[in-house]
């Protein structure tokens, strides 16, 4: 489904002369495709925008989960230092994979994922994002299959990985056991915070999930209780029997309320908590990236220094290797400076990101608490009202007997 492109790419009749730039995305319409083990869910991704970089005001594409993974991985590569929005997990149990609830939860999470990217002032400019939102399915499939784990790395990258391992080994051999780490107390505090936070959040999320289950269980037991009470009522007969019948019916009604609330709780509280956990895990990945960048910077600085010393030595000796050495030195120096720049950029970005992150999370949690409380109040009131309506009937029973 390809929307018609505007004839003149750059300018389009603006809806209002001073229309704000906008980019809005939605992930909708999950559809099960394929058969058996190969089966998967596809989603419709609808993009509405007035940004010039995009092909038109509206575009609809079909994407699957691994496409989202591709996007996340690309962004993670390109935008080091930025907290890439987290993705929902790859599915769990086979049976559960196509349950309506799981599909809806995933859709919601994917929708949030893309929108967070689209509203991040740096990430939204990503070319990969544009590709994701606009490319046709064949292109997407091609891109997706190229990017698989370590094999996606270019030879130079592979070399770098080996070098990293090498230097680690030599460090150990040389007795430098500790990997090179920043000695920044504030950053230490942040790292400690992030790691601790994950534990706390995971625990909260665990209990939130259990609470969802409890709602379902209570609903089920109310339903069973209601049925049993109705049978007892039939056995008793007369006004008492009627009272039992009514109670049983009410009980079954409340069971439905509880199941509804369980679902609400899952979508509006447990999922946001899980999302919070994932976000923290994403930050941990960024922390690892920063550590890598730092190490790289240090190693290159050191290697450059050594190269410089060597160069000077050769110069003094008037060796004919000076030229070569000079070139090597310059290359290395450039690399070292690049590494330093990279590292410093990551530090800067992270500082900004953490502020944004904290604010966002306060907002997210505030909403989550609000929804939770609303749901619980609604449920409790519903239960109270239902039971209260029985009171006059029960009173009538006793006055008649």
């Amino acid at each position: 489904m390809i929307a018609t492109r505007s004839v003149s790419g750059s300018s389009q009749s603006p809806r209002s002369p001073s229309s704000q730039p906008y980019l809005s995305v939605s992930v909708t319409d999950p559809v099960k495709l394929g058969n058996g083990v190969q089966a998967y869910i596809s989603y419709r991704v609808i993009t509405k925008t007035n940004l010039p970089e995009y092909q038109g005001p509206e575009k609809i594409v079909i994407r699957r989960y691994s496409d989202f993974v591709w996007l996340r991985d690309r962004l993670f590569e390109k935008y080091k230092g930025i907290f890439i929005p987290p993705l929902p997990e790859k599915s769990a149990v086979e049976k559960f994979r196509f349950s309506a609830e799981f599909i809806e939860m995933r859709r919601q999470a994917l929708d949030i994922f893309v929108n967070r990217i689209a509203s991040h002032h740096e990430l939204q400019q990503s070319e990969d994002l544009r590709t994701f939102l606009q490319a046709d399915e064949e292109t997407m499939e091609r891109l997706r299959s190229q990017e698989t784990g370590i094999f996606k790395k270019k030879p130079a990258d592979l070399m770098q990985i080996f070098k990293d391992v090498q230097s680690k080994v030599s460090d150990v051999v040389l007795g430098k056991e500790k990997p090179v780490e920043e000695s920044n107390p504030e950053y230490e505090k942040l790292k400690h915070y992030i790691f601790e936070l994950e534990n706390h959040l995971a625990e909260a999320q665990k209990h939130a999930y259990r609470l969802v289950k409890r709602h379902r269980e209570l609903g089920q037991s109310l339903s069973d209780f209601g049925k049993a009470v109705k049978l007892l009522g039939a056995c008793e007969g007369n006004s008492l029997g009627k009272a039992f019948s009514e109670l049983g019916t009410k009980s079954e009604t409340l069971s439905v309320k509880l199941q509804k609330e369980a679902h609400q709780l899952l979508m509006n509280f447990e999922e946001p908590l899980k999302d919070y956990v994932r976000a923290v895990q994403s930050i941990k990945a960024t922390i690892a990236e920063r550590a890598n960048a730092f190490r790289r910077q240090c190693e290159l600085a050191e290697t450059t220094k050594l190269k410089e010393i060597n160069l000077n030595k050769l110069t003094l000796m008037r060796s004919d290797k000076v030229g070569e050495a000079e070139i090597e030195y310059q290359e290395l120096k450039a690399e070292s400076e690049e590494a330093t720049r990279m590292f410093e950029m990551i530090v800067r970005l992270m500082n900004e990101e953490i502020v944004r992150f904290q604010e966002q999370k306060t907002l997210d949690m505030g909403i989550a608490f609000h929804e939770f409380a609303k749901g619980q109040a609604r449920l409790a009131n519903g239960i109270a009202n239902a039971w209260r309506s029985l009171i006059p009937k029960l009173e009538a029973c006793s006055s008649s007997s």
Partner: protein
Amino acid sequence: MMGSDNEGFEEAHLYASKEEMENLVIDNPLNDSNSYSNYRSALSSAISDTSHPLAPSILVTPADSDPILSPPPYRDHLYHNSPTESSYFEPPPFGDNVGDVNGVENHSLNLDNFGRFSRSASWSTSSSTDSEYVKITVSNPLKEQEASNSIVPGGGTYVTYLITTRTNVPEFGGVEFSVRRRFRDVVTLSDRLAESYRGLFIPPRPDKSVVESQVMHKQEFVELRRVALEKYLRRLAAHPVIKRSDELKVFLQVQGKLPLATTTDVASRMLDGAVKLPKQLLGESSVVVAPHEVVQPAKGGRDLLRLFKELKQSVANDWGGSRPLVVEEDKEFIERKEKINDLEQQLSNVSKQAESLVKAQQDMGDTMAELGLAFIKLTKFENEEAVFNSQKARAHDMKGFATAAVKASRFYRELNAQTVEHLDTIHEYLGLMLVVHSAFSDRSSALLTVQTLLSELSSLESRAEKLEATSSKVFGPGKSRNRKIEDLKETIRATEDAKNIAIREYQRIKENNRSELERLDKEREADLLNMLKGFVHNQVGYMEKIANVWTKVVEETSYYAKENS
């Protein structure tokens, strides 16, 4: 906001992790008003918790005051968190509300703050149509030494309980008196009552359960037994007929050794019967059932022959072609019996589902508490590590949420404890079903005795006829023949007497059954209705409270809702 959470709750325990909760100190984030005010200044001053949100409320009331919740011991598994040091409070249902004394409505619905319903199950409280009362308390268990060697080995010590009665019933001849009794005495009382009041729905006595005494600590077991004994005696005193029985009076009043015939041990009875049987078979001792024995069912041991006869009769009833001479013709009774069976089945079903319901409510409360606790830890963490204002704001929100969750969890658990009480009526009536069956079987065995005597009478009479008919023809007139006829006639007369007594007994039991069934129906209707009312009021009360707790949080976080929309 916070200080109000102790209102009207006589017992608000925290049931789990009390220590955990107490150890978490939550800093008031609002102390740091400067940085915070940028965020939600409007709210900051409004929310000032003066008290620790998790301060455990007042615990424990003495047994006699408005009692709370420890459920009957056999329901312990539903309620595993009840603090052990508070031992066993009397659950209200057993008519412990002294307020019932003076002509209060029999089926009174005492509603306090949140529809916490103190019910008085009709069949275990004194009827209030008269203003008389008999209040029994069991207390003060003491270990005592066996005076002489008993036949049973391993004896030596036993426990006695102090049984105190307060009453204004004149037949007792006293207002307050106490005796010491041991469990064996209670068994005796129960057996004597069963004999004297066949056909009545007599409350079942506590089990002998020696096994449990091995498993539990002696102290626990004694306490369990004390509670069970008290419950039993109170029920006896609440039964309209039993309360006036001599057996009960004697049990409650006569000092020293209980002057009721103990049941002879099985061995000697078997012995007795074994000795008598050959004589009976040979016709050497009287085969007539003595009239006074007719009013009791055939017991094993002593009445072997009678047992055989009645067994033969019952087989004849079931398999024989001829109808027995007297049948259970009371159609109404048969219908009632069917209904009782049906009722029992439904009660059992409801009982099972009620247990599930209670478990689910308990779990809800527990998990809510755990969630609250997790967020309290998060609050503490964010406060300690806070670098940004957004964190402080979040910590504040979390605290509000967590506190609400903990409160709500407490309400769930309180609600549940009372649900257990209310729904306990179902279990009570299930227990009663057994008693009803026992009363019905009194009737069946009495009927069987009648049938047996009737067919015996009929066969004796036909023998007599035959003998009369074979007059002088066969062996000539002789003293022996006449004497035989005389003996037979004598036996017939005695059997006739026994039959009449048996029929009277049967009628009596029938009447007992009937009046008890009527009483059961009336009281059951009242009790179950009360149970429903209590249950419903309870739910309404606590759900309102829970709704309030969360509504407050909704208001406090409404800022975010506006932000989002």
